[in-house]
């Protein structure tokens, strides 16, 4: 493409050959992209990725995670992750790994959230933290919140 319409003369630079290493370098880069896609290596070789952008199906029911805080007076509320700072912005990515994690690792993650919660809610606001796996069902209208149809406590901890 030289910016021309039909019949536009080729630029004089088109007659010059690329360096001999151009092909191997481009081939290596494109080949690495193909390998990372065909043999998903996901996180390890980033920025090479398997390009999974909204590729998994979504349906009316969706399993997810929820972290609750139980205050010393017994009241329960969702852990306000948006107040915990950017360090906790992807908490769901870590919650997903909890079912397969060792009990010690589960406890470490849970305590990390409990400690952060105390920093925001105070010691009296956090007697216990619970991580739950929940299944939600979408409402008919987008403006309405989903309904929780199943919930299981995965791990609980104290700060």
């Amino acid at each position, binding site marked *: 493409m030289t910016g021309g319409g039909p019949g536009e003369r080729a630029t004089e630079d088109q007659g010059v050959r690329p360096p001999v290493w151009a092909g191997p370098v481009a081939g290596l880069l494109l080949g690495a*992209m193909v390998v990372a896609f065909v043999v998903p290596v996901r996180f390890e070789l980033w920025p090479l990725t398997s390009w999974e952008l909204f590729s998994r199906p979504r349906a009316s029911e969706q399993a997810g995670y929820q972290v609750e805080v139980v205050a010393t007076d017994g009241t329960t509320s969702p852990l306000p992750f948006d107040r915990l700072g950017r360090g906790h912005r992807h908490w769901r990515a870590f919650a997903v790994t909890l079912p397969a994690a060792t009990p010690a690792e589960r406890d470490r993650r849970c305590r990390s959230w409990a400690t952060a919660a105390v920093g925001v809610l105070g010691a009296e606001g956090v007697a216990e933290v619970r991580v739950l796996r929940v299944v939600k069902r979408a409402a008919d209208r987008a403006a309405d919140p989903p309904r929780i149809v199943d919930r299981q406590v995965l791990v609980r901890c104290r700060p």
Partner: protein
Amino acid sequence: MTAARVLGPLWADGSDRRYRIVRRGLALVVGLRLLFGSFAALAEQPASQTRFPGLLRWLDAVPPAPVLVAVQAAGLLAAAVAVSGWGVRATGPWARRWGGAVATGALPLAWLALLFLTAVKTSGGKIQHNDVLLLLAAVPVLLVPENGTGPRRNVGWPIGAAIAVAALAYCFTGVAKLIHTGPSWAFSDNVRYVMYWSAQTSRPGVPVLTELVADHGWLAMAIGVLTLGFELGFPAVLVLPRVRPLFAAGAVALHTGTWATLGIDYWGWTLTVLVLLPDWGGEARAVRYARPGVEAQGLLVHDGDCAFCTRTATWVARRAGRRATVAPWAELDLAALGLTQDQVLTEVWWVDPDGRTVGGHRAVARALRAVGGPWWVLGTVLALPPLGPIARPAYALVARHRHRLPGGTDACRLPTSHPGRP
């Protein structure tokens, strides 16, 4: 047909001027991503919430904020130098000594800063795709510095390789949808629920739009079909340069829509595609030759046997003054202009002062710009690369029916061999 024959034009696709625009354009995008990255806040990330990708496995924890800010500032400075082109054409003694190294190293330095900071961001647990297209597409361009006053080189291959990276990225994104969900990714309620569930967990740019799509299954399905078609069709840019502006416009629409409905920041992808696909240099050159007040003279070549064409050409000649010469092709030495009789019989042509020729709607755009005033604006808009797929067939339609237009006679009919004839 071998792959080399199909992809050959891709490697040959670049003058030094186009390469300069692409390299500095990517440097600008890298700089903007660094500028708006808010990386210092990543230092708050606790160790228990950190999972480094392979290339940062040597780190024990996220570096403190001052280190992140220093890397960001160094990257920004390097990107600014790369955008300015400092050192490419060294003039002073200091610049003569160090200019080459600075011109060569500025963009790789800025790229490394963005790679590092985005990798730190990725350690937050979620794979960051926001910058991967930019980071990967820039790799071939990092290896080839801009040309100062050296001998001519082939700089088409880094542009071609970068476009190939973009083509693979979009295509793989589409193929991944087919692998994990199948055609029902588009032909089911899937996109509706993408909108619904995202609205529950993210902050859409235009929430009412998210709700609109989530509440109308047919609209969600149409968006799904368009998205999948766009992604799977993207490799067409490798072999059909004419469709590149169309895909650039499609990328703007897709990523703007993603931000509006899901609140996800993909403007790094948008800008990367906008830098790589359209030939902005070609358009800028055309504007330079025909902007109001510039005396450079172009030549409008028309069919003198067609009264409609002659009338239109006379209109241009009267208004463009010294900025354009108008001549029927029969009075010209076509070979000297690099044109053939077949070409001038089927469409109008414009010859730039540097001898470059363009035909059809692009010739009309050049002529309108030479006319000046509001016509200059119309000509500029008509020549915008994204409008090419619309303007080209529109011109062909008018040309096919020019004998029916005011002043048109049977002499205006296109030759029967013209492919545009019904």
